[in-house]
């Protein structure tokens, strides 16, 4: 089972975990991304995430389907937030439930690593003295 979601509203981590829990699954791995207060030594004030929503949902679903093919996992949840996020807020939650933990860990790691490479979502960092689209320039 797959649950994919992009939203301007804050993500509910307990709701994400409840969704993946099931009596057949003994191991759940959850990755939570949070907004750090600094990047490369520079203080970050806030972030802004923008998504090409239709394509991003499609790419997130592809990754979830790949995870279900590659590993014996039962449930895969990928939620991403857009809009302005303050330090400490949560832009992404990935939760994977499997009968056994190895598959849950590996699939969860695969999903976040692949999401960061392929899903059309962009992050802008706001500093005291300016703002920058992450990874845009060499």
């Amino acid at each position: 089972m797959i649950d994919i979601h992009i939203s301007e509203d804050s993500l509910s981590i307990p709701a994400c975990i409840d969704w993946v829990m099931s009596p057949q699954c003994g191991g759940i791995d959850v990755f939570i991304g949070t907004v750090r207060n600094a990047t490369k030594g520079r203080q970050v004030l806030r972030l802004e995430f923008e998504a090409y929503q239709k394509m991003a949902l499609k790419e997130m679903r592809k990754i979830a389907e790949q995870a279900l093919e590659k590993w014996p996992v039962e449930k895969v949840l990928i939620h991403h937030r857009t809009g302005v996020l303050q330090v400490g807020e949560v832009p992404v939650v990935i939760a994977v439930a499997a009968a056994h933990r190895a598959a849950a860990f590996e699939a969860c790691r695969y999903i976040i690593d692949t999401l960061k490479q392929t899903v059309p979502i962009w992050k802008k960092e706001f500093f005291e003295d300016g703002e920058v689209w992450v990874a845009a320039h060499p």
Partner: protein
Amino acid sequence: MKVNVLAFGIAKDIFGSSCIEVELSSAATVESLRAVLEEQHPRLKQLTSYMVAVNDEYAEAGETIEQRDEVAIIPPVSGG
């Protein structure tokens, strides 16, 4: 033909808009679209890289573009 091109992230800043209209020859490909855009918006060439999506899918250089396709410029992604 005129094709609408969606822009996100820094591409939106470069184009000054989240959607621009581009005039392309009828046999246009992703490659020829890139050439036209880079001619009109040279700052695109300063990006680390950028992809083109056609109808919500990443498109190869040789892929053709039809007038009604949804075309989007995808600068380096940085979600998560």
